[in-house]
């Protein structure tokens, strides 16, 4: 919980100062592997060439994204390094709108001729796509940004940190875990991303952004001496973040490794849970994933309108006209916010992938559905609702693509459960609970295609009796029906208990694209939830 107060203060100040506080002057270092920075005028020339070619070929709107990503991944197992890879990818994608139909094409070859060829290819594809068009796409208005730069503020660029330091840290952490009696296997890893991307649109936006992400992680496995059982603990209390190498240093892997190993060994002899109904006290290191699956996904407007029916699914929060301002998702203490401004969050950016400055908005307000996540294509679908609210119709800034190779579409921003007014902690909620189970860390997760029926495991489970933790449990999973679950929430933590979890690889779309997203939340209590026992004998 060391991060919680700092993060909350940053969240509050972000809200107070507005986005302007996050416009950082451009700053580029030139380490060994960098190509010229994307604010080099030659990239603007290339982008304009693609936009011109698209217009000449008949596009009423077009955008071009040029991006270069650099990744580094280091994986260690016990006393050896399994993989050490540094990779980069560079290319561009052109999206066009031709009489209401989208087209998209992409290439790794950033030559002037290829910019033109790919733009024409995108237009030709849009023409082919028009053959099966019923409702032409109309885009919500946007205020263009003629020349913008934005950069995630990091203390330490991960690509400047010597690889020896990273390797030594992983091997030291592994050794610390293996020092615990009964801990047999350990893996540890770190993953870093630096993405530079530029977006040029035919309505006048030209912006360059630099994004960082960092994820340190570990997994410790204990095996019973007679090979009858094995149990693992993942380092889920360390979330991936939109930060630099400072996040790895702050994660204190060596110090925490002993604890994770001890917990894995303890789990071998933990009591197998008795099935039944329990009050659940869910720690934020666990609850963020439940928020992600059961709130953030069903409030994506494309899902609600049937656009993702073939893979990610539709949504029970549909149709919007029966939901907005009407549907009770949870109790009055439940407020869910979408944003792309929280310091260190994975969704933070200056502009989304169609040039919209993202806004902070309430998806659920005092328990009632208040809004959906939108892009420029989708916002007009809720025109009636925004008019009723006396608001203009514009995108919330939820357009995102995982790389230059893929078309941008609606992806969730950070979606967070806001703290309650009363300052109370995880421990305070346990103390107020007579019979229940406390769960820390996210584990197994599965939810249906409309986000009604979900089942979640965890990393650590503790039995609560008379306001006290009386022992560790295993084989625990809870099953829920989303609106019943959230309406059973009767206690939530205060500002000091706020923690931001998150995921690097949230899949959606076809072809499936990964989105990195953070979810802040506070410890919360849910009454009378169905718990099953997942242990079976082979």
């Amino acid at each position: 919980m060391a991060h919680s107060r700092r993060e909350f203060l940053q969240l509050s100040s972000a809200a107070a100062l507005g986005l302007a506080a996050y416009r950082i002057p451009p700053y580029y270092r030139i380490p060994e592997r960098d190509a010229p920075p994307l604010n080099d005028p030659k990239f603007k020339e290339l982008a304009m060439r693609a936009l011109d070619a698209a217009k000449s070929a008949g596009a009423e709107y077009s955008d071009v994204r040029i991006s270069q990503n650099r990744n580094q991944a280091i994986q260690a197992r016990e006393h050896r390094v399994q993989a050490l890879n540094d990779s980069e990818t560079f290319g561009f994608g052109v999206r066009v709108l031709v009489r209401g139909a989208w087209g998209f094409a992409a290439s790794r070859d950033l030559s002037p001729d290829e910019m033109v060829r790919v733009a024409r290819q995108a237009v030709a594809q849009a023409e082919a796509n028009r053959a099966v068009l019923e409702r032409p796409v109309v885009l919500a208005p946007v205020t263009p940004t003629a020349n913008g730069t934005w950069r995630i503020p990091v203390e330490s660029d991960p690509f400047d940190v010597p690889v020896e330091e990273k390797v030594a840290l992983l091997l030291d952490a592994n050794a610390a875990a293996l020092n615990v009696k009964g801990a047999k296997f350990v893996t540890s890893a770190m993953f870093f991303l630096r993405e530079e991307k530029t977006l040029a649109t035919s309505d006048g936006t030209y912006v360059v952004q630099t994004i960082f992400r960092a994820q340190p992680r570990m997994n410790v496995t204990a095996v019973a001496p007679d090979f009858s059982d094995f149990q693992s603990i993942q380092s889920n209390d360390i979330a991936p973040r939109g930060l630099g190498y400072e996040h790895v240093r702050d994660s204190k892997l060596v110090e925490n490794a002993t604890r994770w190993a001890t917990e894995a060994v303890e789990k071998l002899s933990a009591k197998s849970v008795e099935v039944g109904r329990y009050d659940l006290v869910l720690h934020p290191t666990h609850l963020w994933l439940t928020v992600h699956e059961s709130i953030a996904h069903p409030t994506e407007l494309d899902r609600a309108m049937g656009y993702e029916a073939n893979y990610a699914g539709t949504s029970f929060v549909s149709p919007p006209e029966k939901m907005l301002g009407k549907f009770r998702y949870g109790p009055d203490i439940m407020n869910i916010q979408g944003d792309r401004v929280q310091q260190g969050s994975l969704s933070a950016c200056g502009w989304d992938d169609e040039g919209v400055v993202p806004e902070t908005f309430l998806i659920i307000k005092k328990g009632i559905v208040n809004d959906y996540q939108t892009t420029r294509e989708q916002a007009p679908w809720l025109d009636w609702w925004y008019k009723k609210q006396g608001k203009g119709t514009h995108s919330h800034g939820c357009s995102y693509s995982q790389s230059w190779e893929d078309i941008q579409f609606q992806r969730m921003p950070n979606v967070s459960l806001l703290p309650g007014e009363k300052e109370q902690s995880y421990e305070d909620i346990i103390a107020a609970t007579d019979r229940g189970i406390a769960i820390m860390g996210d584990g197994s997760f599965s939810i249906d295609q409309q986000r009604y029926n979900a089942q979640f495991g965890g990393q650590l489970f503790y039995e609560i009796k008379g306001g006290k933790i009386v022992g560790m449990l295993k084989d625990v999973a809870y099953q829920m029906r989303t609106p019943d679950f959230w309406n059973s929430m009767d206690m939530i933590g205060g500002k000091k208990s706020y923690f931001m979890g998150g995921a690097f690889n949230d899949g959606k779309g076809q072809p499936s694209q990964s989105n990195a997203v953070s979810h802040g939340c506070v410890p919360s209590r849910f009454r009378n939830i169905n718990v099953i026992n997942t242990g079976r004998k082979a």
Partner: protein
Amino acid sequence: MSPRSLFDPPGIISRDDAESLTKRILGMAKAEQSRVTIIGGVRGNTRFAVNQISTGGDNTNTTVTIRSTFGSKSASTTTNKLDDVSLQAAVGLSERLAKLAPDDPEAMPELGAQSYQESPSWNAVTANLDPAGRAAAVRAVTEPSRAAKLAATGYIESDASAHAIATNKGLFAYARETSSSMTTTVRAPDGSASGWAGASHTDWSRIDPEALGARAIEKARASANPVAIEPGRYTVVLEPTAVGNLLQLIAFSLNARNADEGRSFFTKQGGGNKIGLKVVDERVTVVSDPFDPDAAALPFTPEGEPAKKTTWIENGIVRNLAYDRYWAQKQGKEPTPLVGTLRMSGGTQSIEDLIASTQRGILVTRFWYIRPVDPRTILFTGLTRDGTFLIEDGKITKAVKNLRYNESPVFMLNNLDAMGVPVRVSASEDGSPGFAIVVPPIKAHDFNFTSLSDAV
């Protein structure tokens, strides 16, 4: 550049070009051992939603990975910048990182020249599928769907790629691969019914869009007004896609080392692994054959080992587990790589026969959101989706609400009643061509459904 076949799409590197590029890169390398991997190709896709094309994409990319080894220290770099300066930088960085890596006690030497069998993994029709061809296939689904007052959503993907591997020990491997898939979910506009159909193949011409659309429409119609049934243990008739969804979970658990280390279903109580032990019904045989025309895969592994046909389970008995080169050497076994293809034995019955022989059971079209719960038993959870029906007295009598299961494919294949004719399926969750899987429909008893879902 060498001449390219007129029938190949641009973006697919030829054997000659791949060989000269690997030579160019190996010429820059100074490491004791070097391996170069080139993967290049094109991907085309078209999405449709609510009876119209929503988006699409056509992209081309080629990546080069350089792995460098000094003694037992290794590292790798990947780039898609193919000019000499960028390649030189990538080689230099890989070698610098390798020198900084600690000694690897499990290091295996790069391989020398190998011989490879030709795999039927390439198809020119798939490689040349264009946006107009994809749009025509979409229309074959959306038009009947619109006529039926239903809403079709779906996805088509076609991939064509070339893969090359070379080492400074003389290995050179090259092969091309295509894959394609089409899936569609047809729903009632008010969300009260949903039906799915899908197919996947190396050869796009083996996929029949009109038939897929008709099947999804029929399922959508039949799935209206589902009734709730009590969760519990049921006899199930699983369509081939549903079997594929679950069978691949066993494939992902075949790692010999995890078994030997005591952290797998394939761990034998008391130590060692389950090779030679019976784990499922004796009618079940599971093989991976990269040369199977209906489930082809590349004829080599990422390290350049020749891929081979491997029998994992034969008549219910574990015959092989997957050994990487290091673990094979340590355990005195042959390296046995896992390749991206799977075929399960079957019977001669049709799915209608399986239904007709069922007094009371549930017919499952496909499973969804399948996630691990307990690796000790390969226990997974997930839900039925887009076509779940009650069978009574040998007939489908009504649509039922979707159900969540907590079940293991191992338990399921022990409770096997009957199997039908195996077919190639599209069993990936995201509709991408995914693992090439050929599986039969099956009937099994005591399948464990644990809760009901209101999702349609």
